[in-house]
């Protein structure tokens, strides 16, 4: 039976719902020995800021039970070199590319969106709002509905492309943030970014990460991510992209049933660099075997 694996994020049509998550897939290139990038729904590249950032001192990563903490510190080449160097390479990959952006201020986000809007070969913009707002004493944009909506608004106004806003899970009520950014006119919502966590080396009595606190990702956080996707999909009308611990085909199906239109694979890429491509193949087979003819039938079937 011919099945239709494609899904739509607003006007953006993806061949299938399997994307890769920002910061876990480099600029795509590293994975070419293991994955046919053009077979993926899309790839999301490492977060880009206005200026180059060195990132945090080491140690930057540590393993935890079924998860890992990272405090990379948003190391990146900055938007100029991204456009001149990286995008040239990325355009040769044959993948649908989503560019993830981050800023310290509304102005940063505005300028990033404007700069990228002229660049060819970008399918959509994903806005990371888990970053600290320097003007507001370092409170993350994503923890306040008003700030989150403002970021969403400035990026939407500067972008002719679909805008995905990526939510932080470190909030009391994720649905309030989700509704706020929906109102601001974004195309879709992706969630979750990492949970804030910590680990201590008891031999040295020092935190294991130089940054003290880091972001928890991997299978450990899957139940929290799935719950938030379910909650958000219950209250918004725009597409939701599920992220958090997704490793197996079953995980992909769970997130879609909970209401996700597409999913992003993060930490799992480190464990098995071929996993995203394997999930594309597995997803098609799943649809065939389960007698569903379209991917869209799966979306939110727990909600109904």
């Amino acid at each position: 039976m011919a099945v239709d694996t494609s899904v739509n994020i607003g006007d953006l049509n993806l061949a299938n719902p399997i994307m890769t998550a920002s910061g876990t897939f480099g600029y795509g290139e590293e994975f070419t020995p293991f994955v046919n990038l053009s077979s993926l729904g899309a790839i999301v590249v490492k977060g880009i800021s206005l200026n180059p950032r060195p990132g945090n001192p080491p140690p930057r990563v540590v393993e935890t039970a079924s998860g890992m903490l990272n405090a990379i510190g948003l190391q990146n080449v900055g938007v100029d070199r991204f456009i001149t160097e990286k995008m040239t390479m990325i355009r040769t990959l044959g993948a649908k590319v989503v560019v993830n952006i981050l800023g310290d201020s509304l102005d940063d986000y505005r300028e990033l969106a404007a700069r990228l809007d002229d660049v060819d070969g970008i399918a959509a913009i994903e806005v990371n709002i888990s970053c600290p707002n320097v003007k507001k004493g370092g409170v993350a944009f994503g923890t306040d509905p008003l700030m989150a909506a403002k970021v969403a608004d400035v990026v939407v106004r500067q972008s002719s492309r679909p805008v995905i806003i990526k939510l932080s899970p470190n909030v009391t009520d994720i649905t309030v943030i989700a509704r706020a950014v929906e109102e601001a006119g974004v195309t879709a919502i992706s969630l979750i970014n990492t949970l804030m966590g910590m680990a201590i080396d008891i031999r040295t009595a020092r935190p294991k990460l130089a940054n003290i606190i880091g972001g928890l990702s991997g299978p450990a956080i899957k139940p929290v991510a799935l719950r938030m996707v379910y909650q958000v999909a219950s209250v918004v009308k725009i597409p939701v992209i599920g992220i958090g611990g997704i490793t197996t085909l079953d995980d992909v199906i769970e997130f879609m049933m909970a209401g996700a239109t597409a999913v992003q694979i993060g930490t799992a890429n480190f464990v098995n660099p071929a996993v995203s491509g394997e999930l594309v193949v597995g997803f098609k087979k799943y649809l065939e075997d389960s007698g569903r003819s379209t991917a869209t039938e799966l979306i939110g079937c727990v909600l109904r």
Partner: protein
Amino acid sequence: MALQYLENGEILENEVVGPDTWRMAIRAPKITDAAQPGQFVMVAVGHESSDPLLRRPLSIHRAENDVLTLLYRIVGKGTKLMSHMKRGEDISLLGPLGKGFQLHATEHHCLVGGGLGVAPLLFLAKEIKRRLPDEKMTILLGGRNSKELLVLADFQHVAPVLVATDDGSQGLHGLITALLDQEISGPATIYTCGPSPMMKGVASLARHRNWPCQVSLETMMACGMGACLGCTVQRAGIDETEKKYVHVCKDGPVFEAGEIWL
């Protein structure tokens, strides 16, 4: 991009070779064939469990006739699980990864290894002998005691070996830097791997003597292939761009000693 593979190898041997130290031989033709001394592999230790989650980086100890050999010490969950694996079982390897040792013609190749740091040096010694058979090579090995002088005989088959132990149970009673200082004179190229204080000592002596010195580093790694940006060490010199750091998995694990903060 250099060739990299995700390869399911068959375990041919997994045995104790020293205190808490094991050697695993794996049939993995593709990775073995592409491997260069100083490179490493990321080893899947968890089977279908998500704890431990990440692969573990291990240096390539030998790479001959389709067989890749690892030398590893049990320090935690992952290496313990590896030691439980049996002959005949499969193990998933990702590699070869990173930038290994650079071989240039030199008057005297000096390999300086401490503890588990000997792991990548055997492959290096064999390559030097194979590719630069006429050049002089000396291998200096250190350990806490004679039992910690790992796979000594394997090195002795390749080149002359000098040893130092902390407790004097074999060779020089003292640090390997003292051995290096005493025994090596004249121009040389140093290749070193071992505990970080040892490498610092070796690098500083090398700087003093004007010896080129390559060091092989370890950091925590999530991906091993340049995707996570987790495995940083700081570059020598101050820089506030993203170039302040290098990545051990991609820019290393072998660096010129002067290139990075040790």
